[in-house]
C-alpha cells in the first residue's frame, strides 16, 4: 500500500482502525455518507463529538472516526449526548444508534430529546433487526418476520421511527436507505447544520441476520436492489398515512421546521439573564 494514495476520507479515520463489520454491511456506507457530509460542510472534525450506544451501528463512529467519540451503554446514547451538548453547546453532537438501541431500550430518551428540541443530530441505522446480538426481532422488524426470537413470525407491530420523531417534536426528519447514499450525505449535512433536534432514519442492510430473515442471506447486493425498488419519494405520494406500510419505503425529508426555540439557546439566554457570579 503506497502511503500517498489514500481513500479521500482517510483523514477522518482513526489510525489503527480495523473494520470488523460483516461483508456487505450497510454500516460502512453510512460511515462514508456521514464523513462526506462533514467534508462537504467543511467542519472542523475536532468540534464534532460522536456518541453511540451498543450495537453494530454504535461501531460506525467508534473507534473509527478520528475525533472525540463516546461509546456508551445500550440505548442511552442520546441521554449522554444531552449532557455533552448542554455543557458545551459549541460542539456539534452526533448520535449513531441502531434501531433497537434507539427505539427499543432507548425509546424514551429518543422522544424526550425530540420534545426538548435540543440541538442533536441522531442517525438511526434501521436494519430492522438486532444485528450485534445475532438476529433477534426489533421494534422495527416487519410483522410476521421469522427471527431468532420470533420463530413463528413476529406478532408485533412496527414502529415508524420517523413518524414517532415527528410526533415527539423533532424539527428535522429525513428517511433514506443505503441505496440513497448521496441523498443521505445531503440530509446528514443539513441535519448537522440545523439547530434543533434532527433525526435521520437510514434504512440499512444487515446481510448476515436480516438477510437471513428475508431469504437474502449474505447477499448485500440484492438487499440494496430491493431498497431501490421499494423506495418512493415523499413528494411522489399524496399523504403520509400509509407511510408504515411494509411494501414501500417512503424516503425524503419528512419534517423541516424552523419555528421552535432550541434548548441550549434558551439556557444561554437564561444564564445571561440571571447569572450572578458566572
Amino acid at each position: 500500500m503506497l502511503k500517498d494514495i489514500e481513500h479521500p476520507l482517510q483523514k477522518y479515520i482513526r489510525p489503527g482502525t480495523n473494520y470488523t463489520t460483516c461483508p456487505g454491511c450497510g454500516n460502512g456506507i453510512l460511515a462514508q455518507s456521514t464523513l462526506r457530509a462533514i467534508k462537504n460542510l467543511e467542519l472542523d472534525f475536532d468540534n464534532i463529538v460522536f456518541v453511540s450506544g451498543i450495537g453494530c451501528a454504535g461501531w460506525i463512529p467508534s473507534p473509527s472516526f478520528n475525533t472525540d467519540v463516546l461509546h456508551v451503554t445500550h440505548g442511552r446514547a442520546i441521554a449522554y449526548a444531552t449532557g455533552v451538548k448542554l455543557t458545551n453547546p459549541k460542539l456539534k453532537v452526533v448520535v449513531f444508534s441502531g434501531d433497537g438501541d434507539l427505539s427499543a431500550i432507548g425509546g424514551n430518551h429518543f422522544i424526550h430529546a425530540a420534545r426538548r428540541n435540543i440541538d442533536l443530530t441522531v442517525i438511526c441505522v434501521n436494519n430492522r433487526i438486532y444485528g450485534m446480538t445475532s438476529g433477534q426481532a426489533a421494534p422495527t422488524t416487519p410483522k410476521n418476520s421469522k427471527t431468532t426470537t420470533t420463530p413463528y413470525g413476529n406478532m408485533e407491530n412496527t414502529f415508524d421511527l420517523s413518524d414517532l420523531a415527528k410526533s415527539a417534536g423533532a424539527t428535522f426528519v429525513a428517511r433514506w436507505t443505503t441505496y440513497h447514499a448521496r441523498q443521505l450525505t445531503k440530509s446528514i449535512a443539513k441535519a448537522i447544520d440545523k439547530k434543533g433536534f434532527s433525526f435521520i432514519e437510514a434504512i440499512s442492510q444487515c446481510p448476515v441476520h436480516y438477510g437471513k430473515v428475508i431469504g437474502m442471506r449474505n447477499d448485500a447486493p440484492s438487499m440494496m436492489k430491493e431498497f431501490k425498488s421499494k423506495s418512493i419519494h415523499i413528494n411522489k405520494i399524496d399523504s403520509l398515512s400509509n407511510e408504515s406500510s411494509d411494501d414501500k419505503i417512503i424516503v425524503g425529508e419528512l419534517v423541516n421546521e424552523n419555528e421552535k426555540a432550541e434548548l441550549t439557546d434558551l439556557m444561554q439566554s437564561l444564564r445571561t439573564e440571571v447569572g450572578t457570579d458566572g
Partner: protein
Amino acid sequence: MIYIKKDMCKGCGLCIEFCPVNILKFSEDLNEKGVYPPEVTDINKCIECENCMIYCPDFAIFLEKGGVKNEK
C-alpha cells in the same frame, strides 16, 4: 483512477453490482481475508460515477478522477 485495497475487501460484491458500466468483476486471487476482491476489466469505460466508492462498506475501493490504476 480506481484504487482497490485488496486486503481490505470483504468480497461483498456491492461495487460490482452498482457499477453502471459493468467494468468490475471478482478477481481470481484470494486475499488475506480469504475472499476474491474485485478488479477492473476495462478502465476506459469508467465514467467516474463514484458508485463503487460510495457503496463500498469497507473503504476498499475508491477513485481519483482522471485515469486508471489497480493497487494492492
